[in-house]
């Protein structure tokens, strides 16, 4: 007979059709129309992603625990490996010291971009691109939240120095759009899909501090502590090494306690020994794409604070290049502080904070000089990154990483003191996108949505519009490639 029959009382109503089943249900019904944001831990979601992409359900997850979650080999396809890095620095730039006077292939670099002289023929400088997104939020907020999303901010409670209060962006950012596109295809799929690096980003979640969005109202926080990033990249592998190191003494201990036990206890310990042996076999049999000795070495004990900014920047860049080299991701962002960022670059002899300086008038020579120094420093960080990419060979030996990587350096404003969203700096370096490099281009108020669309197209993702439809009009900028 069927034992299940005896379990369900025949006259017991199901909870679902019980109208008085409590306020909780009605509350959730009330809020059903409203959106929900789930704040999961990074590791949880990335693990789920990892499992999802492996095509296994969470039910078998425990048995995968011993696998190092690193370096998935990708199937080599007809299309070459392409990578995109977006680097952000805040508060606009000093236009006269930034934009080349000339247009076309023959141009001279101004002081701020001077450090990139070596890469001039691999550069694309785009003047005249505007962030045309209007609506709620001050310029710094829209400059940040709409920079990569190309769409308005929701109305909200965060009040800037001007304009109306605002919340998060209404859509996802272009790096995430490209990530999703790459992750859909097994040939371009990577373990993380994208990594978000930060350098001295204030520990605050607000529209000035987030430029990457996974979707409407879904800001992604950059990881600005190199040790946290290392943990994210290599934690599991490290843990496995630890487990491996303790197996021998553990086996000895199990053996030694066994002798003093009665049969029931001994049975249990013997079972335990079996499991330890199984674990050992699994660890030995696990995939080993990455030699633990090849892990990036980062300086230890560096505190995550303003004064260590130069050092932290280098550490993050090391990790960023490493993550690309090991193909953990092909899309990355590197965010220095935030929009309105108030970094104090004491190492340059500048005591004032960056944002305060950016408000000074063009006639203030001292401020202009200091701002130029700061912007030049950011350019040097870009150069450090580009240098690394230019000197690191691809894992498969097919040239250098810069050949397949484009770095886009951008900013939330065109100029700090005017808070303009016109002439936003967009400087690209590297050969990741098949753009014709070595040019200085000049446009007149070209909507930046079109540039975002062009980035997607460069990956083979042919979208017609991105973010605001109206500003997407015209689509891809054809003369880039």
């Amino acid at each position, binding site marked *: 007979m069927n034992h299940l029959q005896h379990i369900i*009382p025949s006259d017991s109503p199901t909870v679902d059709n019980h109208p*008085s089943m409590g306020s909780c249900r009605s509350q959730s019904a009330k809020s059903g129309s409203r959106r929900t944001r789930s704040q*999961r831990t990074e590791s949880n979601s990335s693990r789920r992603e990892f499992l999802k992409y492996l095509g296994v359900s969470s039910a078998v997850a425990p048995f995968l625990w011993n696998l190092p979650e690193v370096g998935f080999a990708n199937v080599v396809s007809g299309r070459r490996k392409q990578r995109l890095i977006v680097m952000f620095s805040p508060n606009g730039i000093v236009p006269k010291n930034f934009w080349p006077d000339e247009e076309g292939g023959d141009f001279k670099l101004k002081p701020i971009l001077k450090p990139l002289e070596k890469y001039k023929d691999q550069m694309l400088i785009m003047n005249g691109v505007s962030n045309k997104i209007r609506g709620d939020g001050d310029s710094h907020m829209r400059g940040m939240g709409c920079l990569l999303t190309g769409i308005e901010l929701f109305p909200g409670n*965060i009040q800037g120095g001007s304009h109306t209060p605002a*919340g998060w962006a209404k859509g996802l950012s272009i790096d995430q759009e490209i990530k999703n596109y790459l992750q859909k295809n097994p040939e371009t799929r990577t373990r993380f899909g994208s990594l978000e690096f930060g350098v001295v980003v204030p520990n605050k979640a607000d529209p000035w501090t987030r430029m990457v969005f996974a979707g409407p109202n879904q800001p992604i926080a950059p990881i600005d502590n190199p040790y946290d990033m290392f943990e994210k990249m290599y934690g599991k592998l490290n843990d496995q090494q630890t*487990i491996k190191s*303790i197996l021998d003494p553990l086996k000895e201990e199990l053996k030694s306690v066994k002798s003093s036990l009665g049969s029931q206890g001994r049975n249990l310990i013997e079972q335990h020994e079996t499991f330890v042996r199984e674990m050992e076999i699994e660890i030995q049999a696990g995939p080993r794409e990455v030699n633990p000795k090849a892990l990036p070495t980062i300086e230890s004990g560096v505190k995550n604070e303003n004064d260590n900014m130069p050092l932290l920047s280098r550490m993050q860049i090391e990790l960023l290049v490493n993550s690309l080299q090991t193909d953990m991701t092909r899309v990355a962002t590197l965010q220095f502080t935030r929009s309105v960022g108030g970094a104090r670059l004491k190492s340059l002899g500048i005591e004032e904070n960056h944002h305060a300086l950016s408000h000074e008038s063009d006639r203030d020579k001292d401020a202009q000089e200091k701002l130029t120094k700061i912007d030049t420093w950011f350019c040097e960080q870009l150069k450090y990154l580009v240098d690394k990419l230019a000197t690191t060979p691809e894992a498969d030996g097919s040239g250098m990483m810069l050949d397949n990587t484009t770095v886009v350096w951008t900013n939330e404003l065109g100029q700090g003191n005017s808070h303009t969203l016109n002439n936003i700096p967009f400087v690209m370096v590297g050969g990741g996108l098949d753009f014709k490099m070595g040019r200085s281009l000049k446009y007149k108020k070209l909507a930046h949505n079109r540039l975002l669309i062009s980035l997607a197209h460069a990956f083979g993702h042919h979208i017609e519009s991105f973010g605001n439809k109206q500003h997407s009009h015209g689509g891809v900028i054809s003369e880039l490639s």
Partner: protein
Amino acid sequence: MEKSPSGHFIGRCKRRDSHLSNFVSKHHSFVPTVRNWILPDSDIRCCKDQKKQSMPNMKLIPTRSFGLLCVLCCFSLYGMTSYHLASPVCAQTKIPTMDHRHRSALQEGGKIYEASCADCHGGNGEGVEGTFSQPLHGVMTLDELTRYVDATMPEEDPESCVGDEAKEVSKFIFEKFYSLDAQNLRNPPTTVFSRLTRVQHVNVIADLVASFSNRRESIQTKHGLRAAYYSSRSQRRNNLVKERIDRQIDFDFGEGVPTFKTLKKPQEKKIKTTEKPTPPSKKTEKESDKQVDPQTAKKIDGKEFSIRWSGSLIAEESGEYEIIVRSANSVRLFLNNQRKALVDANVVSGDLSEYRARIALIGGRSFDLQVSVARHKEKTASVQLCWVRPSGVEEIIPSRNFSVERSQAVFVPNVKFPPDDESYGYPRGISISKEWTESVSKTAIQTALHISKNIDRFVKDSKDKVAYKKSAKEFCGSFAEKAFRSPLSKEQKSRYVDSPFSGDVTVKESIKRSLVLILKSPLFLYVDLAVETPSPAFWLAMTYWDSIPNREIQDAQNRGQLMDKSNIDWRLEKMLTDNRARIKLRHFFEHWLKLAEFKNMAKDTMLFPNFDEKLAEDLRESLMHQIDDAVWGEVSDFRQLIDGKSWFVNKRIANYYDAEIQADDELEEFRKVERKNGRGILTHPFLMSGFAYSKSSSPIHRGVFLTQNVLGRRLNPPPDAFPPFDGEIAKTWTTREKVEFQTKPIACQRCHCLINDLGFALEEFDAVGKYRKFDNLKPVNPTGEHMNADGKLVKYADAGELAAVLRDDRGVHENFVEELFQFLVKQPLAAFGSDSKQRLMKHFVDNNFSVKKLLIEIGKVAAFRRPNHSVESNENVSSQ
């Protein structure tokens, strides 16, 4: 159903096995609550005597988890009677004690057995292959056995053994090997070599880590959260408008702002900062309200305001909780971490208004909580704090889970452990699996990572590398000693401390390796290992807290103060004031009263329109209040539990059950009031509703519960499943009449003559536990009778009289003592000396059934009479 003796059992076991595994896989956190098993008598013996090591992996499947779910549990005979003729005898016969033994009768019985029974059943009832292979072990009482033998034995000539002869031989069989006592005597239960249970595992880890800081576990304090209301977004002192205690966070101000009946000067109160917890204000709200000078009072005049709630969140169960914050405004929530927000919704954006986050918490602990909400220009203002407990549904966090005291952070490993074995009726660590070893590894890694990330808190920072390494090693050594509950031998020190620090690795990595090795070591995982010297402090902490001793109790042991048993009661009493002990006791009562099975207590909406989830939740709390009052109140008295005349009601319950409560009481506030009808917890509406169908009462569920869990009698499972009887002819019948009709067959009556009467006595309470005089328009007949543990027939006219009978029933007391002991200690009571039960019983009786004192005595038995690990195992601990 298979009929052959052996095949019969195997078939059943297997089927139930797959059934349960399906169930477990569906309900991952399912914790079976069990005592009775779908097993033949012989297997019940294995469970109970626990000597049977030949079946270490045998899965014993609970019927208790089915108990409530069963539509109609028709209990009938198993074992012998299932293939001999069933005899119409009733289970109500008395259970004889050794005092009644007559030596001569026994000798006579032995002779008869030898002559007429031994050929088929073996010299010691062990069974004979080919004739009757099952051992003669079972659950029949002596009386039943006698009648059974009289009627059916020996098989070839039942008439040859009747009357006195049958009596004598039955007595012999019963006392030599058939009864549980006989089995215990023949194979005395011993403690079972166990690992930490999952509850113990997380507790011990949390306390190990905390033992290197000065975290203190909280004791019960005022419920609710301290709230501070400010007239601006910035929470500066000069903006403070009001401080008070809020019971829950569930406010909808609409387009308005918080208003207060009376306002008070903020400078009258000390304002706490987020860094330094201050004791709660001693003034009650009413007192402070009186001192308000309306002239100087502040108020929230603009639209802008903010509120900060602070205190602790008390978790009742361990596991992953989902925290849900709903607000139209800016909101931030910090839980168990004052630095990093769990919910950071400072930004209001679009229609975003619900935020969810997950966090692992440990039952019996308090976790620092701070919630801030601020309104700026938003049109409306509202905030609500809900959670989904690991085993629960979404609800607004009840005030009993808030404490006004703040807490220090506690480390909680977030690892899912497989469920523990509960085949003995209480969770214990007697089996391991690959999944378990992996959970252990994950926990070890998480713990080691937590420590190495916060290494400054554990190892003194030093520029001198040699000194730093030395103090790191000292830390690992001390961690190992605490984890292993014993000083390290030379060899152990080398294995756990020196070798991880040798080789070319950083100090941080060495610490990690050492800690992972310690936390994966059998010396840590198996509680019986490594305790070479008697460690009463450890066993006391395990018994009361499922954890390791705190500094105080450990120091007392180190100073030898625990050995002075005339002067340790106060220490044990103090241990019992810890929240962890309170929660463990609550878990015991939930287990004992089968409350875990009361989920979705949905009632028919036509018949009981206002019985909703909220009321059910309140009833549960009311029951818990009643239990807490009887256990921890001024007069701790088990008998009060059974027939106390008062109960706890809030406004909602009072309205529904027509109880009297002061009109000005807050809705949620519980008050102790006289109960008009019904006494004790056994007639509490929560139990009555739980042991009932959605439309009608269920005398069978109630009766089975009383028989098994209260009287401590064992019942065999029903041979078959039956739908509840509801034929056309029964339209005008009462529930009692229907049950009587359906359980009339002789096979049913053996168990149901006991079950039914107990259940019928509670017929005065309908499906929601409301008192009634009529059922289906006929007067309720709540009369009944049964044979008590001393073989006396007791009669009762109604539930009140039944409660009076049960309060003084020896069997009820014995069962409670044993259940409580085993739940706390996780070992069989009989393993602590064959006289342990009698000793505890005597102590219980001598101390007017004080549960508190019983708990203390159980602690002493667990700590000082533990076999193999105690030098004083023979000493009388009941030296009051």
